[in-house]
């Protein structure tokens, strides 16, 4: 099975994240980059499916030079090879454009299964699997908390607000995963050493056959008009429980008309 896992490098969520004042895009330079957390679950699921059914796991990343750190981590977990779509012209691309660029690469590489994390911790749109399925014309089997492959049949548990749906489709397909699906492995020392020798193909827009006029900030379909730090919340009333903490909390709720 030819499995492609999408990996995005994001700013570490423990750091203070901000937008750049000049073009209102994510400031990636001032903070450490890490692999998007849910993408680790996607990698793990790809590795497990390849181990169970045979096949190869390819990492696909779009991002600046720095993103190669995340690619290495994915390879050290056990993925076989990687493709890094890297081009200054991609900077500032929105979800629509990113999906177009990734779909162009996936169209070249071919795939049986594309696996993504359900959302990234920076943009948090949660749309990539849906957009890619739409562009590639294959089933979208997303928000999976469990994945089973039987021949060309795919069955997942799709997380919903009320529990989950069992959803069936056939390969090739695009899936996205939620964190409940597995426990990502840590890279072993052997894995880290082996990753250094694994092939990483870098592609420019021209290499991937992507029209530079269709991607990047200037052509984005959405734009930030302005942004500001949220004003700090007004300091609240903090009381120490002296045996009446519950009663005082109830009093507060009453004054706020919640009860």
């Amino acid at each position, binding site marked *: 099975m030819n499995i492609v896992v999408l990996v995005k490098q994001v700013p570490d969520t423990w750091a203070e994240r901000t937008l750049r004042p000049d073009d209102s895009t994510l400031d990636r330079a001032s903070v450490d980059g890490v692999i998007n957390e849910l993408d680790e679950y996607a990698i793990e699921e790809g590795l497990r499916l390849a181990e169970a059914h045979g096949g190869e796991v390819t990492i696909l990343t779009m991002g600046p030079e720095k993103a190669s750190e995340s690619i290495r981590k994915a390879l050290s977990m056990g993925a076989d090879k990687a493709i890094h779509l890297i081009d200054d012209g991609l900077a500032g691309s929105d979800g629509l454009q990113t999906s177009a660029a990734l779909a162009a690469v996936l169209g070249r590489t071919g795939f049986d299964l594309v696996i993504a994390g359900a959302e990234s911790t920076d943009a948090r749109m949660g749309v990539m699997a849906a957009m890619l399925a739409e562009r590639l014309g294959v089933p979208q089997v997303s928000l999976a908390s469990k994945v089973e492959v039987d021949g060309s049949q795919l069955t997942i548990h799709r997380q919903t607000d009320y529990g989950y749906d069992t959803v069936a489709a056939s390969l090739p397909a695009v899936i996205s995963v939620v964190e409940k699906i597995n426990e990502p492995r840590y890279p072993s020392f052997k894995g880290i050493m082996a990753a250094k020798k694994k092939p990483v193909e870098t592609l420019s827009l021209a290499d991937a056959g992507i029209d530079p006029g269709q991607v990047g900030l200037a052509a984005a379909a959405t734009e930030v008009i302005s942004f500001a730090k949220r004003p700090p919340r007004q300091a609240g009333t903090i009381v120490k429980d002296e045996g009446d903490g519950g009663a005082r909390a*109830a009093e507060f709720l009453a004054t706020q008309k919640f009860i």
Partner: protein
Amino acid sequence: MAEVLVLAEHDGETVKKVTGELLTLARQFGEPSAVWLGSGAEGGRERLAEFGAAKVYLAEGSDFTDGVVAPAAEVLAALAGRTSPAAVLMAATGEGKEVAGRLAVKIGSGVITDAVGLAPGDDGGLVAEQSIFGGAIVVQSRVRTGTPIIAVRPNSVAAEPAPAAAAIEPAGVELSDAAKAVRVTERVVAERGERPELTEAAIVVSGGRGVGNAENFALIEKLADSLGAAVGASRAATDAGWYPHQFQVGQTGKTVSPQLYMAVGISGAIQHRAGMQTAKTIMVINKDPEAPIFELADFGVVGDLFQVVPQLTEQIEQRSAN
């Protein structure tokens, strides 16, 4: 006046609260038309009318009740082509955002997700407010290509009635085979009693590591029930298996914006704050006075939750009984 398409959220019988909110927001930009997929439109029609839907486009059948995302996107794309709406609005739920994403690709329009506010800009165009990076930054954005597609978070605005006809009209869309390629074969509903849905609830009571074990979550549930609230949990609690994963509030779980959020035994790591920081009022109960969650508290009690919570529950029940 231009139409504004609003994808109705419903469970096959009743309309969810967020749909009234979306219709209220939609009225700023034109005449709202609800889009109802699947069964139950007759039952839901009254509320759609109450909040200002002039029309209800209806697409029925098993392709909608058992389909996943693609059928909804296809119907909305066809309706958008036919009606040239001022905007298309849906709820920023997992599924709603996916519908927004597919629709954006289909009609080549920009999409904004997780809007917490929507207002006309200087040029009359639609400006969306988002709260990003765990609520640290507030962003105003707009769609500059095509029809604005906006997924709006539940509880972003109070629904205000503005009666309209809600005339049902068949959507008249023939689905492609591709849109039928994914089927729901079973729906599994987790037990949540009579509680409201987490993302829709006006009040959410969440428990964290301090709750200690699964059994103790009964305390959280009892407090929630005294307020008619939904129950949430921090990642520490769901990872430990104390409470089901779908109730997790935070960066890798649900984002909620209730009127009142009560964090019980939750320290308030950024991962949790990302999911609840836009709550209007925040109450904290935690024994550690240094817990970062107190920074967000409008009212906080430093104390043992096993003392404070039962007392609070009892007081609420007494006051409600009077």
